[in-house]
């Protein structure tokens, strides 16, 4: 087992959460070889009797989780985000359709995954799971929020997909502030009247930095960590749409079907508002450093700033 990172990567937060909820005997952790990567290895080390290794076999893993769930267990199954997608139909037909409750975690989400290259950089996971009824879709922005939100899944009413990130990013929350997070409620990080920047995952910190820079130009932005993509916080979207001139969504995910789509789908029908989507523009990644790759696909502080400027009339 590799040493746990000293805070920052959301996958570490997931591993910590499993330890924090381990006292509940319903918790069963399921692995498909990548426990060292998803950080479920932390649970395995302490609770081997409640850890089920299934080898490199994701389709089997999802239905084993469903079977355990049907007997009252609360299974937490994890692998790379991209490999959960191999079992998409199993999640759809075997887990969500009968209304069973198990929690899938896909680590290494997004281009930010880095040097492993495009095969490991899931940029469509949030989109595909968002289409399944009875599924909640979560993408925390740091390790502390990953821990908090995963702990809240213990008594949650439906199956979920949580995407975590491989690499560390600066913490968004403190040990105290993170306690106010709730699944399904967007988190307001700063308030401004001109524009709203709604971000997820590793892009939340960049959204905060962009907002800071823009403030110096006299543009005041609200920054939201929309850690729950489904169900999306429509109450918050209504409020924002009434207040600001437009919205910029920011995600390390395809612009098709993810956060930007979820926000646009809701607002176009309910509170028509200009939405500019920043995300991976319908392309695959490649090998490279995390920051290099984000720059390559246009996921930068500068691109957030220019999207905001394109909306705001001073």
């Amino acid at each position: 087992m590799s040493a746990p990172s000293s805070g920052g990567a959301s996958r570490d937060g997931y591993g910590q959460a499993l330890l924090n909820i381990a006292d509940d005997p319903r918790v069963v952790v399921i692995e498909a070889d990548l426990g060292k990567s998803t950080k479920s290895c932390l649970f395995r080390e302490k609770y081997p009797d409640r850890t089920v290794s299934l080898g490199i076999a994701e389709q089997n893993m999802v239905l084993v989780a469903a079977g355990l769930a049907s007997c009252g267990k609360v299974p937490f199954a994890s692998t790379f985000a991209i490999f959960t997608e191999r079992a998409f139909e199993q999640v759809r037909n075997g887990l969500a359709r009968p209304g069973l409750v198990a929690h899938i975690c896909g680590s290494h989400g997004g281009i930010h995954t880095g040097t492993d290259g495009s095969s490991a950089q899931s940029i469509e996971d949030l989109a595909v799971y968002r289409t399944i009824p009875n599924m909640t879709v979560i993408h925390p922005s740091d390790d502390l929020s990953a821990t908090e939100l995963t702990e809240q899944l213990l008594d949650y009413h439906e199956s979920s997909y949580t995407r975590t990130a491989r690499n560390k990013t600066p913490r968004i929350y403190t040990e105290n502030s993170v306690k106010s997070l709730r699944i399904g409620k967007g988190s307001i990080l700063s308030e401004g009247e001109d524009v709203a920047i709604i971000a997820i995952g590793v892009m939340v910190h960049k959204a905060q930095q962009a907002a800071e820079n823009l403030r110096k130009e006299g543009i005041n932005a609200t920054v939201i960590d929309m850690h729950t993509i489904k169900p999306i916080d429509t109450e918050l979207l209504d409020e924002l749409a009434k207040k600001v001139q437009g919205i910029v969504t920011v995600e390390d995910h395809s612009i098709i079907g993810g956060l930007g789509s979820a926000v646009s789908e809701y607002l176009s029908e309910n509170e028509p508002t200009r939405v500019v989507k920043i995300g991976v523009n319908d392309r695959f990644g490649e090998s490279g450093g995390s920051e290099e790759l984000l720059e390559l696909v246009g996921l930068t502080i500068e691109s957030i700033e220019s999207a905001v400027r394109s909306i705001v009339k001073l």
Partner: protein
Amino acid sequence: MEASNPSIESLEQTAIECRKSIIQMIHKAGAGHPGGSLSAIDILVALYGTQLNFDVSDRKSPTRDRFIMSKGHASPAVYSILHQHGFLQQSDLDGFRTLGSVCQGHVDMKWTNGVDFSAGSLGMGLSFGIGTALAARLDNHPYQTWVMLGDGETQEGQIWEAMMAANYHELNNLHVIVDRNRIQNDDFVNVQMEVGDLASKIKSFGWEVKEIDGHNMQEIVEALQWSINSTSPSAIVAHTVKGKGVSFMEDNPSFHGKAPNDSELEQALEELS
């Protein structure tokens, strides 16, 4: 209900009643899968009659035995045996495949009392059974998990992921029955994708395996008991005839998923009486 010891003759009589229900259900719905229901029904009658522990008045009892019909299109077979054991009423069977009916096209735990798995997509049931068998072990419950697979279904890779996992986790409370009726949707199995010697293949994954005539009630009853006594995960490869009991459906790929018309219904019921 504690498993009882009905006579072979009474089991055979129940199987005839179930076959009639199957044909009538599918005829009334105008759709469904008679072939694989008729090939599986003798096994289900024996399983429910002699092995499964369940309580109709406590259908969700955590200690009940689980039966997972992985080849979920054989739903009429499941509904007919659930009807025989008091889980479903005749009116439920009459609603098969209609809007709002508890008898969905493919077996579905969300809709039907007594059904433990939502099937319809092949290849998933054995994995689910591993989950229920692991849960039994974690909770120190003695209940058993039985999974019925189709032979065409074993073309799915997930079946072999699960075969490997069941042996690795030493799940001797998990029992598989393969309905080896040699026909799948489009044609004979050996035309579509020959699955070969399934008994040897499963054995090579570390399972105990027994081959039987899936229409010989005595053999079925004995094989189920053999499986209970096994010390490893165990599989019964039951050689069956698709459409068994209705002459024009027997071994006939066109009745995999086709309803009988009025005159075919009449002939089928005559043959079964």
